[in-house]
């Protein structure tokens, strides 16, 4: 292939990606530089360049898209100066968006129209797409807002883009709040939100609790009313827990971490204790269409009751242990260092 043809192909390829208003000028300059380079090399070698040598010169110059991209003005939706504020805003506000959306959905489900109430028309697909929609909208608006800030930052006052700040006005260093807080506050909040969503969804989709191979109809139980009451109780408990987890994302609130955890722990014990009010957990159950014998029902009821009693004892023991640990730290005024 002739050198001119090779160069023409290359320059044509570069031209396609250059800004239209500079194409001719830039291509002419690149052409002159590349031809000079080839002529220079020919002089050094004392002979015309082989096709491979010409290809090497052109290849060394770079891929057409990359070469053209270097001539484009640098674009960034949100530049490095604004980006830390953008990221900080997302990290701070997104958990609130998720939490508020879940709470709002829970309230709408509990107190909404009868068609929307428990076990009838909770659509897990709708819940998931709704949550994603809320998160997506939030991210979109925040991004647009910060992109506009980036775009207009040259026109904004210096005070706005470089806000005055005084180290004396920064929050007081609070190692107790810092070290006493949850180890993974964001993970805790997200886990609570997901668990609440799961709780709200499973009456409509029992497969979420019993797995894909067990049909709700296979295990057709005449459940006593206590389970329905328990369901609402545990929904309320998880709403409180989620609110606490979201509140604990704020550093000042973490100072009260142990008090909040104590309240949640006690409420959890109360929820388990509520189930121990009865000895009748499964009523007149049938399994696979066949009724269970009274002895089987009694055995299952006793097992559930004893199991719950054991869970209650473990929960109380853990509560006492945690409280003792906390009191020990309080009395010695030592905050254990995190590892």
């Amino acid at each position, binding site marked *: 292939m002739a050198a001119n043809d090779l160069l023409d192909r290359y320059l044509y390829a570069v031209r396609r990606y250059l800004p239209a208003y500079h194409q001719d*000028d*830039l291509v*002419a*300059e*690149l052409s*002159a*530089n590349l*031809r*000079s*380079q080839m002529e*220079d090399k020919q002089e050094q070698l004392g002979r015309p360049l082989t096709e491979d040598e010409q290809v090497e010169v052109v290849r*060394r*110059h*770079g891929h057409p898209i*990359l*070469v053209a991209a*270097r*001539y484009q003005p640098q674009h960034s939706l949100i530049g490095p100066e604004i980006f830390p504020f953008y990221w900080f805003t997302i990290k701070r506000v997104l958990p609130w968006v998720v939490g508020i959306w879940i709470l709002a959905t829970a309230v709408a489900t509990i107190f909404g129209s009868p068609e929307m109430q428990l076990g009838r028309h909770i659509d897990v697909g709708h819940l998931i797409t709704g949550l994603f929609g809320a998160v997506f909208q939030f991210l979109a608006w925040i991004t647009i807002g910060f992109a506009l800030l980036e775009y207009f930052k040259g026109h904004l006052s210096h005070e706005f883009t470089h806000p005055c700040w005084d180290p004396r006005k920064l929050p007081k260093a609070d190692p107790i709040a810092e070290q006493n807080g949850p180890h993974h506050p964001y993970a805790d909040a997200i886990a609570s939100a997901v668990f609440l969503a799961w709780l709200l969804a499973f009456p409509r989709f029992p497969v979420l609790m019993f797995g894909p191979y067990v049909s709700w109809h296979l295990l057709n139980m005449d459940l006593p009313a206590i389970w329905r009451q328990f369901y609402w109780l545990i929904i309320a408990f998880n709403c409180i827990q989620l609110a606490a987890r979201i509140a604990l994302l704020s550093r000042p609130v973490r100072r009260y971490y142990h008090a909040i955890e104590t309240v949640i722990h006690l409420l959890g014990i109360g929820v388990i204790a509520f189930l121990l009010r009865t000895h009748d957990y499964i009523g007149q159950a049938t399994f696979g269409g066949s009724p269970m014998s009274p002895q089987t029902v009694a055995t299952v009821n006793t097992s559930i009751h004893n199991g719950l009693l054991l869970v209650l004892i473990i929960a109380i023991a853990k509560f006492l242990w945690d409280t003792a640990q906390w009191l020990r730290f309080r009395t010695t005024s030592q905050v254990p260092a995190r590892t």
Partner: protein
Amino acid sequence: MSEAIQAVFENLRLELRRGCLILAVLAQLREEHYGYTLRKTLADHGIDIEESTLYPLLRRLETQGLLLSEWREHEKRNKRFYRLSPAGAATLEQLLVEWESINSSIHQVLSGNAVNIAKEA
């Protein structure tokens, strides 16, 4: 050296070179050059710079008002020649002062470290 550390070194080397290259280009353009001869002259002085970096850099410096350019026929071919503008010359002087200051500070830091190491030994 592990690949990760090598990658970190490469990034740091590029950052260190970036500012120096601009200084070298501005200094070399006290004399008039077109793209290829400028690259060759810099390479002869030990400053190797890729075409795909140099030519867009020249355009950017021109847009910033630090360079002037004109198309002129040279060796039977039209070429775009660049040279330092008055604003570019003033900026280069300021940058050279800054460069000398940084260079001298770095030398002081390095020699101070060398003295401390010698004392500890």
